[in-house]
């Protein structure tokens, strides 16, 4: 009855310290409409608080959404948040606002991972939204965040994670995730193939972390000018030299016998291992030697899955077996006297081993 006789034309609440409700912030970040947000809050029992009614809740939600919208411009360049004058927000709340704004759904990130962060992809957001159940508005925000971070750090020198942290004031964990996204987007790793679908964002993020830490220019040389985003060309080139491990028949046999000697009785799939050793070794070394081509770099993960993980899986290797095998496979190369590329080998195998172990699951 009341609503017919009057209508709210304007309704604002401004606090000297900006009033921020974290739960409502999350709803806003999730891309909910005000109406949905109010419904969700009612379902969560907000009406029990403070003798509220639906009207109060609606007013509060609208007001909060508006506040966040006003803050959004600042959140897009987080360094401004601390020295802007418009909103008085205590530092720990500023941190919360920024961190939450840049947080993303790993489901979403998994879909975008390795794709070119361009406008063309943005049109696909609709599909991703309907696939993952994430509201389109939220997809937009997450995608724009990826793009923004990518654009800023793409050309920057120095360690990737630190660059992201410095420019976007994110926590270490979140900055690492963003580093993964930037890294994947930059190298355009293939992640979308059906066979890779079982891998989660965290799997890839871990792998990206490994690659960034050990295979980029910044990994060996700590000079600030170095770039973290690209793999070290020289190293990739050197990987060609590993071919000798499979091309040289003696070396391959010697390698096999060394590994077999170590693993006998220690793994359940010994016979399967013995049978497929040459194939597996050839797969790993071939992947290494092909990495000079950008196309093959992109296929790194699909290659690992198709050429190594799948064979092992079909032979029902356990993760423990795999770990033992990789450890000895990698270390026994040191006793191959004819092999000169020990350093390159370790740098390669260290990363490959941890990536495979991370990726080896159902």
């Amino acid at each position, binding site marked *: 009855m009341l609503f017919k*006789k009057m209508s709210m034309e*304007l309704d*604002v609440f*401004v606090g*000297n*310290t900006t*009033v921020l409700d974290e739960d409502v912030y999350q709803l806003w970040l999730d891309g909910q409409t005000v109406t949905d947000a109010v419904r969700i809050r009612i379902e969560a029992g907000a009406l029990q608080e403070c003798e509220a*009614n639906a009207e109060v809740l609606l007013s509060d939600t609208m007001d909060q959404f508006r506040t966040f919208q006003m803050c959004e411009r600042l959140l897009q360049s987080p360094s401004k948040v601390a020295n802007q*004058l418009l909103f*008085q927000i205590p530092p720990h709340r500023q941190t919360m606002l920024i961190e939450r704004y840049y947080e993303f759904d790993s489901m979403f990130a998994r879909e975008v991972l390795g794709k070119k962060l361009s406008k063309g992809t943005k049109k696909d957001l609709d599909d991703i939204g309907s696939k993952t159940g994430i509201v389109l508005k939220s997809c937009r925000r997450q995608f724009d965040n990826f793009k923004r971070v990518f654009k800023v750090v793409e050309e920057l020198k120095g360690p990737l994670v630190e660059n992201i942290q410095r420019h976007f004031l994110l926590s270490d964990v979140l900055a690492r995730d963003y580093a993964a996204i930037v890294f994947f987007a930059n190298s355009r790793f293939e992640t979308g193939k059906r066979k890779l679908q079982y891998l989660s964002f965290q799997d890839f993020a871990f792998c990206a972390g490994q690659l960034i830490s050990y295979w980029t220019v910044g990994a060996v040389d700590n000079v600030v000018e170095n770039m973290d985003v690209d793999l070290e060309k020289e190293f990739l080139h050197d990987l060609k030299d590993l071919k000798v491990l499979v091309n040289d028949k003696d070396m391959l046999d010697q390698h096999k016998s060394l590994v077999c000697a170590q693993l006998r009785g220690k793994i359940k799939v010994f016979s399967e291992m013995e049978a497929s050793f040459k194939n597996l070794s050839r797969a790993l070394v071939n992947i290494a030697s092909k990495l000079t081509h950008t196309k093959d770099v992109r296929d790194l993960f699909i290659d690992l899955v198709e050429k190594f993980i799948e064979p092992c899986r079909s032979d029902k290797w356990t993760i423990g077996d795999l770990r033992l095998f990789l450890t000895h496979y990698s270390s026994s190369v040191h006793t191959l006297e004819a092999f000169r590329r020990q350093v390159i080998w370790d740098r390669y195998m260290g990363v490959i081993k941890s990536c495979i172990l991370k990726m080896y699951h159902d």
Partner: protein
Amino acid sequence: MPGKLKAKIVAGRHLPVMDRASDLTDAFVEVKFGNTTFKTDVYPKSLNPQWNSEWFKFEVDDEDLQDEPLQITVLDHDTYSANDAIGKVYIDIDPLLCSEAATVISGWLPIYDTIHGIRGEINVLVKVDLFNDLNRFRQSSCGVKFFCTTSIPRCYRAVMVHGFVEELVVNEDPEYQWIDRIRTPRASNEARQRLIFLMSGELQRKIGLKVLEMGGNAVVGYLQCFDLEGETGLVVRAIGTACTLEKISTLPATATHPSNSSPSKDMKEPGFGEEAPGVPLSSGPPTPLRAQTFSSFSPSKSYSRQSSSSDTELSLTPKTGMGSGGSAGKEAGPLKALLRQQTQSALEQREYPFFTLTAFPPGFLLHVGGVVSARSVKLLDRIHNPDEPETRDAWWEEIRQEIKSHAKALGCHAVVGYSESTSICEEVCILSASGTAAILSSRFMQDGSLDTEHRFEEVVPPGCGFCHIPYDELNIPFPAQLTYCYCCRRYKVPDVLFTTIDLPTEANVTGKGCLIQARLCRTKKKAQGEGNATAISNLLPFLEYELHTQLMNKLKLRGMNALFGLRIQISVGETMLLGLASATGVYLTALPSPGGIQVAGKTPSDITYEQHISNMQKKINDTISKNKELHEINPPEVVEEIIGSPIPEPRQRSRLFRSHSESSDEVSELDLSHGKKDAFVLEIDDTDAVEDIHALLTDSPTPAGFYSCNTEIMPGIQNWTSAIQMFTSVRVFRLNANLTNQGLNKIFSDLCENLLKSLYFKLRSMVPCCLCHLNFTVAIPEDELIQVAVTAVAMSFDKEQSLENGKQSGEKTLIKAITENDEQLQFNLELNAETSSPNPLSSPKGLSEVGSHPSARDRCSSWIEQLKLKAHTIRRGSVKTTSSLEKASPLPEGRSRSLRSNRSYSGSSVAVVKMTPLSFIPGAKIIKYLGIINMFFIRETTSLREEGGVSGFLHTFIAEVFAMVRAHVAALGGNAVVSYSMKECVFMENPNKNQAQCLINVSGDAVIFIQESELESTSVQTQSATTHTSNGGEGT
């Protein structure tokens, strides 16, 4: 050339992109003061220019220094076309003109544009070199301090309170000049902003001159308002209380000077028993004249005569203070007194014994008569000479005279808590003034250099003295039920007390208080000119009467007996009048317990009807008892009186007010000071009454953990944490249908209730908390639109300590009283027998031995112990605060936070500036007042939808205003604004054209505070020993 103003432009940051091609800006700055302009170099292609300019020097008269703002304009250089303005900064340099305030303005200030809002920031340095000018006929009043605070500012001591100062200036409103048709909205807005800056400067200077003339050095309770009359002009008017203030040395207060913390202490000398202590109206013989007059009075003196004489005395005071000083007056003695008597009538014409203060130094406020108010309806288009202030001066004069005579009728010689306001709709203007009739002690009325014998010490039983009636019992100006004071049992008190002032700190209060609002809408026919004015005049008395009845009923419903901070606002629109009365209800221990509300039916024959009545009665009774529980109202004695109070005859209902409201045509008057129990019989003889009762019961109680009041402090809550949240909320409603009065009332009442509910919900993370200074402003911006604006502060308190602290609060007043009274043994001994007032004992042990009253004994059991406890709880409290803050972190700036921020001033991050409408900051000590903040902004948009509609537009604007206030305070070196208020918020929209405009005027006092915990840590040892004194001084 008495002054040199120096300004340096350091840098800019976050500038907007002005050149789309390069995404950069070529910025430079124009610095203008008066007619002189300087420019910086162009800093090319940057959004963060570093100008690092030379010092621009302006050599100017101090008169100009007071009137003019420093105007800084940031522009984008354009080689081929005109330079584009990015925005402006107006800097009020007044704070730099006073030696005790700020010395430099330095910091990042938002660059503001009336169309785009804040567009980046600019870092500036401003200084003033002032040469002393001893010219007697000077036009400037540099050095007079201004305070918005309506009490004696915290780090000052009142040496003298001179009295009322007022001034009014008029100018043509730039928006209504012919040129406005051809200039841009930006130019027009800027002309208006600048004009208002100039006018406020001029106004302040003129008021300062009056203060100097009176011999004062400060204006306290400075209230400046704008009347946007439209065609007839733009009026800026101000009122205030001229004082002579003396700075209390700041830091040692805790350790070395226990006495300093109580401002009046120094003046206390052993009193003389010329008159019995505590006699009402015994303002003593402060001047020879009064000594003489009084001595001739018999004990049964005529109060009316006396009040008129004291009236004269008050009116004279400003003159006494002028130049000559009090000692001269004393020497002249009776002769001079005689002269004064002769000039009395002439003086009464000019002088107003008004005080804009709402809180007073201890012992200043003796008795309170009640609320006095006056209203008058005027037609703006009938002003003969609109450019001159005379007509408006005359209007206000008329109203003030009215107020004065009302006060006199109440046997009072002064009006305190005085304020003035207007409401304008088209050519109709309602002028309103209200205050509280009171009797004041002469202590602060003359020079402190008087002999001791004239420094008569007033000894009123603390906590109830102000309730004692100032008027003659046999000659009451209105019917009221008087009883003997429930505290001292010696003097008469009224049954209900309404006032516009804050609750005196010494007042004895039972339980807690709460916000009480009366809301009313009245439809009115559209009319023009004279007819319209008459219609409004005719409606006003009814409006006031109904508001008053509502207040009374609601007060009763809460089981309370007094209202403080009463503010009645009446707004006029084309087709309706809105009335909103807000006040804080309390139960004064000294006043009798209020009777209940009795519902009486007209036709007792009908059984169902009777049942209906009894149901309603039950509901009311339930509400009353529930409310009493809620507000912890358990009067120590005579509880049964409430229940068993005889029900008066129903027919007596409200006869009294009708006669009042018919009394005047243009000026309506209402004495809200009284209330008879019989006013609370609600007769259900018409639907109106049924509605009334429903309306009564619809006010929902505040949610658990919340308290609310519109005064400075909430009785019963002392242990504030440092978590405060000031906020402004604005709502505009559109009425969609033709509504009856009742429909309107319901809607209006629901609006206010819902707004309150929203506030509670918003601030729920601060619970337990109290919304203080909860002041609503209503307006009718357009036909069928109602605008409600609220500015208040939410303050958290520690719940676990509240019980303990209830004791402590008593303790506090007690101790305070002791410090004040301990030298006046002879009076207090006399009082002991009858009163529960604190006992004057020089030795702490003695306290527990005396104290006839059980609760007093309880409270006093051992004050040393209590003090230890207090010191303990303070320390404990700080720990608790932090933890509770973490939990409640969403809202307030916490203690830990503000501590950090205080220290990291020069850091790159922005310093926290607290804002509060109160005169103090909980848990902190104000160590310096930096000057008054008085800012006026206009914001306009032609892309309303793009800015998020009306709400988005106003939300941004209010946030921007806060940001600018904070930045200016920080630039002055301050970390808080106290006594902050939003005086004006005029919002106009035209959604069809996608346009909106808003004007906001805010004011407050910029201060530096330090957390008490910091003080404590420096002097823990001494602190515990002197806690009581510092607390007494804080007077929280």
